[in-house]
């Protein structure tokens, strides 16, 4: 089985790219692959505590926490989060925070790297 890393960039609301990323992650986990998710740019908001679900907007938090439970490593870009005013204590349990060089280092060992979204 392979190691799939996804760099995820879209915002929580406004496109379905984020939904696609999590669906793809679930499908890969289902097939037995190891999945790593790097949340960067606007996508770092996925890792913020206190999100409320509205029927008008996509809500992927439950899906992301489900992936974490199944062993998916989810990491948010620290600088992107700090620039948006949320800090370590605001981060959902189970989500790591790292700098961009950590993500670059991850690319050495992963079998496939995919980038999804961005505005």
């Amino acid at each position: 089985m392979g190691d799939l890393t996804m760099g995820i960039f879209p915002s929580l609301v406004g496109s379905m790219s984020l939904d696609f990323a999590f669906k793809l992650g679930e499908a890969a986990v289902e097939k037995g692959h190891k999945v790593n998710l790097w949340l960067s740019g606007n996508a770092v908001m996925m890792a913020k505590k206190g999100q409320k679900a509205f029927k008008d907007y996509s809500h992927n938090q439950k899906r992301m926490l489900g992936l974490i439970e199944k062993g998916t490593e989810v990491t948010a870009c620290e600088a992107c989060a700090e620039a948006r005013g949320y800090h370590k204590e605001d981060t959902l349990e189970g989500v790591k925070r790292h700098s961009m060089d950590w993500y670059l280092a991850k690319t050495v060992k992963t079998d496939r790297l995919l980038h999804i979204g961005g505005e």
Partner: protein
Amino acid sequence: MAEAKLLFVVQRPPYKNENPRLALTHAIASQTAEIYMDDGDAVIPIVAFVGDGVLNAVKGQKAMETYGVTSTEMHIKTSLLIDMPIWVCKEDMERLGLTEDMMIQDAEELGAEIKTTFVSYADIQKEMEQTNHLLFF
């Protein structure tokens, strides 16, 4: 011991969204990635500007004066300073009426030894085929 060749392909114009900036900051982060890697492992980045993304490499950007932020030009020059190849697609420059003298060609004032490379799309595609990972921004 492993190394990963990374090709960052930037297709969006500057200052309209965060992606081109993220491409450069991620690529520059390769300089310090070794602290998270096993001994002997390495990442080797190239940044290629294609499509409207070539506008990122236009020289004379006034981002600090206009927006109060560091310019994409400064990020490109920093990339050259750390010997990270910067490629700009010639066909897309031509499409937008850009000539090499309008583009960031070097960062000599910072002490950079390498220069921007103006390449054909065929060269970029060839690199896409042989790189370990493609990172579209």
